[in-house]
């Protein structure tokens, strides 16, 4: 299994792809963005190399530069070479380059929804590169397409060839994308965040498939990702990028065992992990990545680095070889290698301690009983074709004061709809939502307005959750004025300043417009807006999933600190099981509109009862190559059924490894399997 340690398949040979000192600039109306500066890396045949970094660090741009697909005329390669199979790709003519793309190098993009052409059948899209590059006949192309679809695990390939992308699920589309990339037997595949848009169980299937294909067919792979767990499991070698430059380069195991750049150290520590005990708060990298229009001189990471020295801010650190195959662009890398991160002050001492016990009010703030939210979907013109999506179908839970309840599940499981129904953004079809004894599904008018003040929301996407035409100050002051919480404009403005400071921003930012802030800062403004009404209960709808790892940790810590200080109660909706484990007191796992399991956090993660919970936890990759490669994993088969046509009996039986005849007939009730540990499965 450990290809990285015991000699790479192609080690010693000359590299297949060699990027040398690549510089990419974008000339925009606001200035020149130096998006990639001096990037060099090698990929040998059959090897899987990862490019890791946060958004805007230049990882995707460098891949586009290799493929010569940079947006023109703004993007340009100003220096460097890309040697592939003995040729410099940057010197080829456009016609020659077209031959290379698709035939020698395949590419897989992040968004399987938009990277397939919606008006062409899948079969046509797979055979197209064959006609282009291999000049084979229609019969042979069709046979090859069938082979490819089977190879990427698409059942019923004959029929699937004729279908269009909208008839494929997200996971199936990504499989089809892989089939297209494989069509002409490429030597190299560049995969840009290939599983970021997919659910965790589907992600596991796709990654296993890619790894298996790459090994069997001897295809080298460049994997661009921000997910360190994925890197740990699949990559042989890793290149960490920060603010357009390489920070560190190493074999995967060595990198995870002992990172030699303070940024890598921080990155590894700020991810909440399932395999380690939960600390009281996450370690973070303070601050924000630099603006590439005006980057700091010297080391790009210096402004955020706990181990920085005066020299770091003046001299650009060279990418030095620290050990065999290990490079780090840090002036203190040698010290880091010998003394470890603690000695350089890179480890937060407090983070190791056990979390303080929470004392919870026994009275529930929110009680949900038998909640159903159904949507009518009219298919076709005739009302007889009406279908009902049971987004939430009989869910009950309660949340006590000061508690955080986590709601996890894959897309389409109804977790967001529950949050929206609680907020009265959707109307409940049946059931009750009791807020301190009053049924929220029935209140209206002034009473509803009063409840709206006490129940607030934080949204997922920091880019679209703030009105672009209002300043931050207006966004914060408006709800206070509408609810009469502040006597006048001046008091509201002063309070807005206080709120900004409370969420870790500065009062002067009230003058700014949302587009002048970074993603993490906007999310803080979103939190401040929720706090403006002094609520008691906040629905957090995936509040960190759109953020970069280092920013995510900052926001999680902020949410926890605010909860302690203000006595808030949270419903925390998320798909990231490690984040949920870190922040939640109790966790409910959902699947197709129903709760599968609900229990205290520690009980749920230590001893998951429901087969779905077990599969979910099993699918999450852990950012530690040694642990990760020892885990034998059986990815959950199949995909989530359409909520328009959910299975009879237990909704999970179509994918359940334990399913038997009884599960097809009986709808399992949520039962107390152990004290305060509920699960809905007849086999328990």
């Amino acid at each position, binding site marked *: 299994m450990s290809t990285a340690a015991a000699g790479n398949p192609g080690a010693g040979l000359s590299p297949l792809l060699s990027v040398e000192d690549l510089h990419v600039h974008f000339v925009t109306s606001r200035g020149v963005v130096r998006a990639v500066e001096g990037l060099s890396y090698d990929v040998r045949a059959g090897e899987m190399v990862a490019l890791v970094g946060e958004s805007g660090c230049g990882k995707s741009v460098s891949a586009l530069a290799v493929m010569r697909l940079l947006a023109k005329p703004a993007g340009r390669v100003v220096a460097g070479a890309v040697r592939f199979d003995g040729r410099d790709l940057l010197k080829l003519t456009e016609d020659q380059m077209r031959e290379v793309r698709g035939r020698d190098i395949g590419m897989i993009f992040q968004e399987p929804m938009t990277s397939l052409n919606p008006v062409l059948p899948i079969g046509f899209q797979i055979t197209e590169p064959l006609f282009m590059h291999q000049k084979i006949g229609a019969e042979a192309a069709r046979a090859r397409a069938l082979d490819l679809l089977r190879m990427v695990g698409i059942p019923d390939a004959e029929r699937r060839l004729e279908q269009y992308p909208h008839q494929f699920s997200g996971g199936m589309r990504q499989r089809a994308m892989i089939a297209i990339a494989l069509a002409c037997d490429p030597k190299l595949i560049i995969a840009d965040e290939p599983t970021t848009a997919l659910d965790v169980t589907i992600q596991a299937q796709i990654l296993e498939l890619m790894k298996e294909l790459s090994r069997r067919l001897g295809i080298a792979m460049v994997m661009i990702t921000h997910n360190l767990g994925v890197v740990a499991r699949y990559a042989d070698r890793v290149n960490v990028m920060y603010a357009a430059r390489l920070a560190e380069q190493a074999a995967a195991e060595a990198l995870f065992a002992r990172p030699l750049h303070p940024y890598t150290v921080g990155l590894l520590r700020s991810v909440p992990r399932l395999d380690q005990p939960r600390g009281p708060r996450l370690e973070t990298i303070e601050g924000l990545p630099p603006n590439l229009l005006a980057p700091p001189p010297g080391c790009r990471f210096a402004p955020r680095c706990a181990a920085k020295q005066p020299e770091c801010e003046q001299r650009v650190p060279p990418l030095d070889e620290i050990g065999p195959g290990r490079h780090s662009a840090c002036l203190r890398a040698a010290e880091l290698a010998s003394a470890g991160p603690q000695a350089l002050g890179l480890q937060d001492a407090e983070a190791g301690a056990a979390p303080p016990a929470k004392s919870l009010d026994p009275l529930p703030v929110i009680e949900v009983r038998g909640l159903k939210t159904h949507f009518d979907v009219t298919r076709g013109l005739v009302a007889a074709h009406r279908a009902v999506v049971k987004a939430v179908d009989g869910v009950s839970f309660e949340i006590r004061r000061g508690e955080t309840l986590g709601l996890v599940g894959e897309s389409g499981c109804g977790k967001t709809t529950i949050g929206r129904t609680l907020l009265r953004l959707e109307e409940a079809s049946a059931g009750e939502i009791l807020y301190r004894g009053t049924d929220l599904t029935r209140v209206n008018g002034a009473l509803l307005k009063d409840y*709206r003040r006490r129940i607030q*929301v934080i949204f997922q996407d920091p880019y679209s959750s703030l009105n672009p035409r209002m300043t931050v100050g207006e966004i914060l002051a*408006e709800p206070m004025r509408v609810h009469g919480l502040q006597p006048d404009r001046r008091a509201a403005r002063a309070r807005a300043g206080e709120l900004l400071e409370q969420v870790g921003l500065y009062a002067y930012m009230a003058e700014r417009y949302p587009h002048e802030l970074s993603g993490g800062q906007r999310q803080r403004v979103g939190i401040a807006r929720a706090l403006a009404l002094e609520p008691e209960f906040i629905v957090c709808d995936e509040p960190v999933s759109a953020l970069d790892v280092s920013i995510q940790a900052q926001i999680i810590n902020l949410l926890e600190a605010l909860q302690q200080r203000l006595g808030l109660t949270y419903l925390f909706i998320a798909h990231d099981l490690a984040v949920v484990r870190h922040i939640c007191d109790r966790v409910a796992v959902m699947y197709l509109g129903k709760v599968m399991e609900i229990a205290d956090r520690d009980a749920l993660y230590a001893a998951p009862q429901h087969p779905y919970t077990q599969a979910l936890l099993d699918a999450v990759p852990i950012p530690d190559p040694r642990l990760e490669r020892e885990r034998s994993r059986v990815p959950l088969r199949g995909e989530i059924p359409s909520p328009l046509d959910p299975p009879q009996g237990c909704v999970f039986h179509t994918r359940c490894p334990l399913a038997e005849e009884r599960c097809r007939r009986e709808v399992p009730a949520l039962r107390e399997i152990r004290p305060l540990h509920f699960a809905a499965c007849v086999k328990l």
Partner: protein
Amino acid sequence: MSAVSAAPDIVYAAPRQRHPVIAFLRHQPLGAAGLVVIVLMILAAVLAKWVAPYDPLTVDYGGILARPSWQHWLGTDNFGRDVLSRIIYGAQTALSVGFLASILGSTLGALIGVASAYFGGRIDMLVQRLMDVLLSFPIIVLALAVAAILGKNVVLGVDVNLVLAIGLPMVPKVARVVRASALAVREMPYIDAARTAGFSHARIIFRHIVPNVTAPYLIMLTAFVGQAILLEASLSFLGLGATEPTPAWGLMLSGSAIDFYQQAPWMIVFPGLAISLAVFAFNLFGDSLRDWLDPKLKI
């Protein structure tokens, strides 16, 4: 593997921070040309008293149907009135009716579009079907009907009913375009945030949706000024708009001009040119404004 080299020394010219109007003129030369014509027309209309060589209403039976000459640049009509002066004064009618009708039609249409999108469901369905009915009539027929029913009602020198007749047929078109934008805005999380903060419908519509659909509104508004000028000319030509002796472009083409155009083609050529130029200028400007305000087309 080599170490990182220093960044190549490429010196880029610093981006200049230009005033948005200057930037628009530089990037949209056709739109700028349109804008120049529009500004000239507005100046002519406002300063008509001083710019026009003659009084547009003075009849001179000694000089009827005079050819264009140094005295009368664009000739005279069958009453001996100076055609250039009548065109300059005609700009007042064209622009006032054009702008007022377009502002009225676009604003009403935008409000209907936003409300229809925001409330959705049955209200949206009913409003949109009503708009479909209005759209099924040619705009000129609708305007003719309104003008014929309402008659004339001059307030402060502007025929209010003419403005209504021209503005109302534009409502459904604007309503559709603005509704489409508003539908996208309505789905944004910041609208959900406004709802969860307990804001009233009016506040959400006017404070949160309307400012985010101003781009399509402004584009429709400018494009329709040209349309409105054309419509005003058509209605005047058909005898339902301005009436003699008011100098109006459409009117100059009709009536006695039809009897005399073979002897005195300048009587119809120049007002016709004025109408075409005005409509062309507003269309050019409207198109450029659309490109300019569309962030997807910007680098």
